[in-house]
């Protein structure tokens, strides 16, 4: 691993920021519920942080990310402002999408964040677009599309892989296989255990990685991004992982206790911390400081969100037409 210690610590900080963001978001959601306000769906990314961070570490601001319904982690890893994201969760006018999108639709095109998607698999064909645009204009920008293993059962996903490979588009499809789609276990959705072999049938490389191992994700993504930038076409990466929470705030837990315990022992954050400590890339004091700083940042973000004004109801039609 030839990454400088500050880059490693930065990746840890991003993972910790995502984790803390989700905890804060859940608090806000419960606060809302307590006073009879329902803040829509909230899908936690806890447990999957290594994937967004490991992949986005290779991206520039002019590279594109298409996210899913479980997209807070992608947005943070791509560099979105957590204050604006938190305000979006509360539907505030200072929100990252001006209160028009909510949890599933966080957009920041100036840093290539092209939004989450409320339609499972909805981002998979859209991601072809900026990849096509890069090829059309002759730039070396790449596009990453994150999606869950549930989306891999959509027809359009397969159409998209086919077109990506046919035209050698600079796009990387990253499947976050957390083994469950809402309450459906993967064995009830896939007749085979792995996704990567499907890539071969479209004539593109497929890789399987431990999605809870930041360094493994980082390495696989580096290879895929390098290939795309060099004009050598798309890659499908399947990252095996597990979410720490139920599907969303309003769906009770369906997964077996022992399975959850087994995966929580593989939590990507403590795993990476242990490695950093072992390598001497961070000290105990620095680690504690990092967490304190992240906590303070998210406290401030939650305060900002609470204090921000709601949009003027008269402006509901604003932003529809260009």
């Amino acid at each position, binding site marked *: 691993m030839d990454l400088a210690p500050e880059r490693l610590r930065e990746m840890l900080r991003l993972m910790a920021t995502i984790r803390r963001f989700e905890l804060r978001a859940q608090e806000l959601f419960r606060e809302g519920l307590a006073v009879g306000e329902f803040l829509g769906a909230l899908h936690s990314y806890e447990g999957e942080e290594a994937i967004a961070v490991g992949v986005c570490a290779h991206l520039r601001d002019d590279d594109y990310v298409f996210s899913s319904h479980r997209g807070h982690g992608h947005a943070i890893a791509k560099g979105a402002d957590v204050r604006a994201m938190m305000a979006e969760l509360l539907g505030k006018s200072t929100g*990252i*999408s001006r209160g028009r999108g909510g949890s599933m639709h966080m*957009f920041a095109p100036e840093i290539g964040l092209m939004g989450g998607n409320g*339609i499972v698999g*909805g981002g998979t064909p*859209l991601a*072809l*677009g900026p990849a096509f*645009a890069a090829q059309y204009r002759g730039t070396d920008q790449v596009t990453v599309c994150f999606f869950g293993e549930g989306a891999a059962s959509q027809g359009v996903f397969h159409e998209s892989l086919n*077109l990506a490979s046919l035209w050698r588009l600079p796009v990387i499809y990253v499947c976050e296989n957390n083994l469950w789609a809402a309450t459906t276990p993967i064995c009830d959705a896939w007749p085979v255990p792995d996704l990567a072999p499907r890539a071969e049938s479209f004539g593109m490389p497929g890789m399987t990685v431990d999605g809870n191992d930041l360094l493994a994700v980082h390495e696989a993504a580096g290879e895929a991004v390098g290939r795309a930038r060099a004009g050598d076409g798309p890659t499908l990466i399947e990252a095996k992982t597990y979410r720490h929470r139920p599907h969303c705030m309003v769906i009770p837990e369906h997964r077996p206790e022992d399975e959850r315990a087994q995966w929580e022992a593989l939590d990507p954050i403590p795993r990476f911390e242990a490695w950093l400590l072992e390598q001497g890339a961070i000290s105990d004091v620095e680690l504690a400081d990092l967490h304190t700083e992240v906590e303070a940042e998210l406290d401030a973000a939650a305060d900002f969100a609470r204090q921000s004004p709601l949009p003027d109801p008269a402006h509901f039609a604003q932003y529809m037409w260009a």
Partner: protein
Amino acid sequence: MRNVTMVRALNEAIAEEMARDESVFVIGEDVADCGGVFGVTAGMAKRFGRERVRQTPISEAAFTGLAVGAAMAGLRPICEIMYVDFATTCMDQILNQAAKLRYMSGGQVTVPLVMRTQQGGGTCEAAQHSQCLEAIFAHVPGLKVAIPATPYDAKGLLKSAIRDDNPVIFLEHKLLYEEKGDIPREEFLVPLGEAEVKREGGDVTVVAWSLMVGKALDAAQALEDEVSVEVIDPRTLVPLDFEAIATSVRKTGRLVIAQEACLAGGFAGEILRRVCDECFDALSAPPRVVGSASVPMPFSPALEAAVLAGEEEIIAAISAVAA
């Protein structure tokens, strides 16, 4: 002036805009090798290269999604769907994505996409190749809907649609492709959202679009000695130039709306809603809607003719409201 077919007019619009703006490209099935099955993009691949005239596999969802994403990244795709009936396979990309991305992003994303397709019956192609689906697109906030009746309007509207920063669904009619009309030699645009009075009259207003404009004009001609009919073509359903319709209704007090689409849930109903809201008092007779029967389009020519609304039904409706 030159007398050209609608196919020619559309072809010129695309070629002119591609020459004017490098970010404009064409994507769709068979668009490079034969210019699409109706020949609208004929010659484009030769002139602009296959990079800008992208012939796709039969994957409407993927290539329409690609077009939407490319528009988000600043290109100006002209995405061709061979038949509007096939757009059902990419409705997510159109209705959920293209239509909503700008709004959901709080105005940060723009989707300057044109989706060209053709619709309509009358060619014995049965129920999956004969629909008129304009009402579906017009129903969804965030999509503009253009639906030209003449070569002039087709060229002018298409050029405006390509330059527009919003997604525009551009609905051609398969029976109008070979119809001829005059267009100027010099460049011109037809703005989106501007109706045209195709024939002036004082007794009855007929609002019609696409193929029905010609049929309404024929009906007006046939009734010339009895009633003075005004024919209005909105040319775009979204945005709708309702003011032009209201002005005419205030003058005539009598209204017929003629659509080829089947009657149930059609766009004529939406125009009637606006009339009820905004100029009901001007009506001196109950308005009438002409449209096709609400059944899947039959194959047999005898049955298809019975289902499709045409000049006869428009004449009957005009006579009824004028009585």
